[in-house]
């Protein structure tokens, strides 16, 4: 399942507590959603670049197991955006549940 437009929010959530690299972010989202939220990994990096351009995340290089990797960490603006997205999502989710009814 791929909810259009939610990937940036999921990325911000994935790097909220500690910096991470692209591969780990992708795997984290898939595992935490138990495979429900699936997306093509080639589209992850354009979303990361967009968030970086908007100042929501920043990147730096670090070596892990002898291999240079680009890590991404959330910024102050990113935390603000994540909080706003979370609130909007809860509101939307509540409204849809009200209409469809809980299973």
């Amino acid at each position, binding site marked *: 399942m791929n909810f259009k437009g939610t990937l940036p929010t999921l990325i911000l959530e994935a790097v909220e507590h500690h910096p991470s*690299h*692209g*591969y780990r972010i*992708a795997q984290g989202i898939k595992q935490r959603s138990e495979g429900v939220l699936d*997306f*093509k*990994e*080639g*589209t*992850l*990096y*354009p*979303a990361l*670049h*967009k968030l*970086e*351009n908007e*100042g929501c995340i920043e990147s730096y290089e670090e070596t892990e197991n002898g*291999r240079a*990797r*680009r890590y991404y960490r959330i910024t102050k603006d990113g935390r603000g955006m994540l909080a706003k997205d979370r609130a909007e999502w809860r509101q939307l989710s509540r409204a849809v549940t009200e209409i469809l009814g809980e299973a």
Partner: protein
Amino acid sequence: MAPVELWIEGATKCLSQESAAQVRKEITEHYEATRESAIANGAAAQDAERAALEALGDARTANKQYCRVMLTESEAKVLRQGDREASFVCSNSWLKWTMLVFPLAGIVVAALMWIKGEHLPALAIIVAGLFFGNLLLAPFLPIYTPSRSRVFRAVKLVAQAVAMVVIFGGALKYFWLMAACFWPIFYSEWQRATIRRKLPVAQWPKQLYL
């Protein structure tokens, strides 16, 4: 050519050299990590490669998204040309001073003409000064922050619109002709706006502030 190389080639179409190099690096890194993980989970080398490539998805879709967020070759060309123009002006002191003095001399001449009672030519010089002044003086103004940049661009837009209306006020029905003549200016402004959206503020060269 390896399948992943073909994928990268498709995903980096139309991107600038720097952007393409960055995409190549991050996708290769990601592909290798996925492949190694599959091998560690017991997959055969060929199956692991196929799974890693499938996980990347469609190269054309990725290319469309990359082109929206990273510099394309034509945008990089605009930046390179702007840099060349700026370094040419700044390295040529004669040209630099001419550009600084020209609008000021225009104001003095317009004032003298106005005092002499030659109002129409004085007005024409002021209008021309408004139009060209902000273009000539812009590189020398202390505009280094996004907020100053926004103010300057708003002032520039208003000054140019006023100059247009004053010059062509009586012939606004030929606006389509004016729009056609000034199309290159509109196009380059639009490209700069796109580049501003694609680059973090910390990476903006001076020309993007103007």
